[in-house]
């Protein structure tokens, strides 16, 4: 059937094409479209009946005419070839080479849509990943197999932070580094270039596979890109036993492409015009991370979400937060104060932290130290607000101590150099330096033993 071409296109609009009198094509099948200049485009069947098929064209339907367009049904879903040689390569959103090198030849072909991991096959992620960044390691620890997004906004250094995580992430007692799958959707040329140079400079390029769709590439391709990238990640993790770190940037561009296609299809919009299935769609991507029983590899996911107008309740960050296992939130205020990385810890969270830290993983006082820092910082922020109203002079000595703490916490604990790689022990010692600004009986969230061992008052 794949040799036959159909010239029965009855409508072309946005990214959608309707083909009449099509054969019995399968839902989700791939399609090749040849236009009047003999150029090929790629598409996918998104609705089909006995009478017609609705096709989503990844490159869009611009410049097509109804007369001179030929459609070929490939009789297979969107699949990609996979081999160890993908590492070091650059592809587009459909898995085609973008680096002027030959396509991947392999007999391993995978459907990019994947299928849900059986919860009974999963194993709970609990191995601490040291990123060398105190605000993450100390307070919002990442573990292998977790999905932990960075919530950012335009103008904030999320790319630098993501690159730093990629550079420094490792297990405490293992030398093996991560393989990296880098998936960029609708990013600017400058951003893509930045990552490429970062990977080249730190010498990890040979361990990175990049899937890139630039801001001026077809938006519909962004819908396929993360699926292609995650299929590659699953292959590296579960076929080749590697630990894979996947960076997806920027999920906001992905969701916007989804909205564009949904609107064209006439789907009922829910919040802000996004389709009602945005949650399920995002979940299909994010849930592909994890660990599987009896498999050595793992897929750890760090998506970047830029919050439109800095709004964390916008549907994209909101739904992301409901699916992912926490979030790292960047703050414009901290950024303007010159703090790098500007991680605002109050709304940040790592849900899987509890099982990856403490005795045997990091250090026994870690969970309580994190808890105590959070509590003090919350109180300190309250005090800071109060000081803004009544003036710092009006505050009691006790309250002024909180202000000093907040200052030191922002500049010394949160703030660090872009190439500063702190071990978890360094991070925890730094935490105790700050906690020791308070007398012992104000630290009720750490234990007596912790105080005796780490509080600086007696030393």
């Amino acid at each position: 059937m794949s040799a036959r071409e159909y010239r029965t296109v009855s409508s072309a609009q946005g990214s959608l094409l309707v083909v009449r009198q099509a054969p019995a094509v399968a839902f989700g099948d791939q399609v090749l479209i040849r236009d009047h200049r003999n150029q090929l485009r790629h598409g996918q069947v998104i609705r089909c009946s006995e009478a017609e098929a609705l096709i989503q064209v990844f490159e869009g339907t611009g410049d097509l005419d109804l007369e001179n367009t030929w459609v070929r049904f490939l009789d297979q879903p969107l699949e990609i070839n996979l081999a160890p040689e993908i590492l070091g390569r650059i592809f587009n959103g459909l898995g085609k080479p973008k680096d002027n090198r030959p396509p991947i030849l392999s007999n391993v072909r995978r459907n990019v849509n994947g299928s849900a991991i059986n919860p009974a096959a999963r194993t709970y992620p609990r191995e601490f990943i040291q990123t060398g960044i105190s605000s993450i390691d100390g307070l919002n620890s990442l573990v292998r197999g977790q999905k932990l997004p960075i919530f950012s906004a335009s103008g904030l250094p999320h790319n630098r932070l993501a690159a730093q995580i990629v550079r420094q992430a490792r297990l405490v007692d293992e030398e093996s580094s991560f393989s990296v799958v880098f998936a960029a959707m609708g990013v600017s040329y400058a951003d893509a270039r930045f990552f490429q140079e970062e990977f080249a400079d730190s010498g990890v390029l040979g361990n990175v596979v990049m899937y890139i769709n630039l801001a001026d590439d077809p938006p519909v391709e962004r819908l396929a890109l993360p699926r292609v990238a995650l299929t590659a990640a699953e292959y590296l993790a579960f076929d080749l036993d590697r630990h894979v770190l996947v960076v997806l940037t920027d999920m906001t561009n992905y969701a916007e492409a989804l909205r564009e296609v949904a609107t064209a299809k006439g789907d009922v919009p829910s919040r802000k015009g996004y389709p009602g299935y945005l949650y399920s769609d995002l979940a299909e991507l994010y849930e592909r991370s994890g660990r599987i029983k009896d498999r050595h590899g793992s897929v750890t996911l760090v998506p970047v979400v830029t919050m439109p107008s800095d709004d964390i309740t916008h549907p994209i960050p909101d739904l992301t937060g409901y699916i992912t296992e926490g979030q790292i939130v960047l703050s414009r205020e901290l950024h303007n104060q010159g703090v790098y990385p500007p991680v605002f810890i109050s709304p940040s969270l790592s849900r899987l932290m509890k099982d990856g830290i403490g005795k045997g993983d990091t250090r026994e006082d870690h969970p309580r130290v994190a808890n105590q820092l959070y509590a003090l910082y919350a109180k300190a922020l309250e005090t800071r607000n109060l000081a803004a109203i009544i003036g710092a002079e009006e505050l009691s000595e006790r309250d002024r101590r909180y202000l000093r703490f907040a200052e030191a916490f922002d500049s010394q604990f949160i703030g660090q150099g872009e190439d500063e790689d702190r071990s978890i022990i360094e991070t925890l010692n730094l935490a105790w330096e700050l906690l020791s600004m308070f007398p012992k009986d104000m630290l009720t969230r750490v234990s007596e033993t912790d105080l005796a061992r780490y509080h600086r008052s007696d030393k």
Partner: protein
Amino acid sequence: MSEKQGIIREINGPILTIRLPGIRNGEQVKIGELGLFGEVIALKGETALVQSYESTEGVRPGEPVIGLGRPLSVELGPGLLGSIFDGVQRPLDKVLLASGDHIGRGIHLPALDRERLWHFVPEPASEIGSTLSPGQLIGRVQESAIIQHRILVPPDLSGELLELAPEGDYRLDDPIGQLKLSDGRSRKLKLYHNWPVRTPRPYRRRDHGLSPLITGQRILDTFFPLLKGGKSAVPGPFGAGKTVVQQQIARWSNADIVIYVGCGERGNELVDVLETFPQLQDPYSGHRLMERTLLVANTSNMPVVAREASIYVGITMAEYYRDQGYDVVLLADSTSRWAEALREVSGRLGQMPVEDGYPAYLASRLAAFYERAGRVEAQNGATGSVTLIGAVSPPGGDFSEPVTAHTKEIIQTFWALSKELADARHYPAIDWVGSFSEHVATAAQWWHREISPDWQRRRGQALGLLARDAELARIVNLVGPEALSSAQRWELEGAALIKEGVLQQSALDPVDTFASPEKQFLLLEMMLTIYDRGAELIELGISVQELTDLPLMARARRAKQTYSSEQCDQIRTLMEEFRQAFAKIRLEYAKFKEHTQ
């Protein structure tokens, strides 16, 4: 049960149009060559609309579709406990063996193990020749170390008992008895039966809830109690701790059986339950928690239509154990994802959306689902209950959105989670201002009888103190703490004691994670005693500072994690130390006054 065959005409994501004259609305179908599971949701002339529980990728128009002659049903019998099922009751451990790490399509496996032998003990009262009524007890099987499974006549059958198997080991498919129905036909009885999930199981009579569900969580039990057979909702934005609250209830509540429906939620969270529950001990029976737990898992990346079904699958199994006379807790995490599944299907059907794209029948579906909770007298006279606790995930944490708003009208206990509290790491982040319980008066009878006649008064006093705290905090934010009188500052201290010493409870701390009712009350009593006695001293002129500087204060705040529920006496001793310390201060102050005069 005749099988009817038709063909597929159109595929639009999970919704298909088929041509199959004579099929019934709600009937299950097998779709295409892959044999996917689906359900008829609308009829139009000779065509029908079908929703598929599995991805329809690769399905073509023209492929066959087979009507199975029955609605979506679950198997009810021994072997449910300790299992993990997907949204349409496929056993995920068996699916794992059949299709590997990822869930394959078109896999049809029976929910219950057909090979396993169960030791059946017939009920002596069920004599041959006697007439059995629907739901009547015919025998027992020890399902797990703690749960005795009661084998019941299916709720829609009755008749003369012709045969009943003697005590012995039987497989699920072995007949254990025979009934002669009123129309003269005979029906074999087995250890299990099927029941359609969208039909509530019948019962004799509905009762009021009487005793509180004890969860070991202070803010729930002491401040916003839920009764066995009640319905409650836990709404909260992401990161506020809905899942931890639900898991804590699953771990520590004094129910007989806990059914946890992960509906559109994270795979790793279910794994957490799967890995930890078999190791955790039930605080009441001492056995492994998994022996009373049953999981239904439809993770967020599984097909959305099965998500819609998963909640009904869960509640039907809950009703089944209720009919055996057990107190069942059903945790549904999250009902918002279920509502979104409704929305997605209705959108694909082109139904007119009302609020936020949700269909007009959202409110009535929600109400009908929650209505399946309750304490009932079963057909066989046993008393059992289904307590329903639904998590709600409002977009942007906005409680005025349709799912939260409609849920709030239905439920009796509302545990509102707050982003602000969670940000300050005040866990459980249940906001005492936005939460409510309609069960306080009923729960009070139990607390007064079992723990202390002071319970309701002390609870009221604590809530009053917290309300004063919010008022004073507003003043402080406007004009600073110096504007407050000593008595007012002591009120702030008192509220802080309640918050830190009673309300905050760490799920991770091995001691603090569970508090018996006695411990809950003693902690509350201690904090309020400190406040009351302190207030007297402050009235005499003693400074707030002098009291807050007492080293005892830090011990009071730590008491929750220092003393376990078995060490309540030590909390009493600590309370006594406070009384003495305060009396000493009073004495010294009196001497000092005398001296200076």
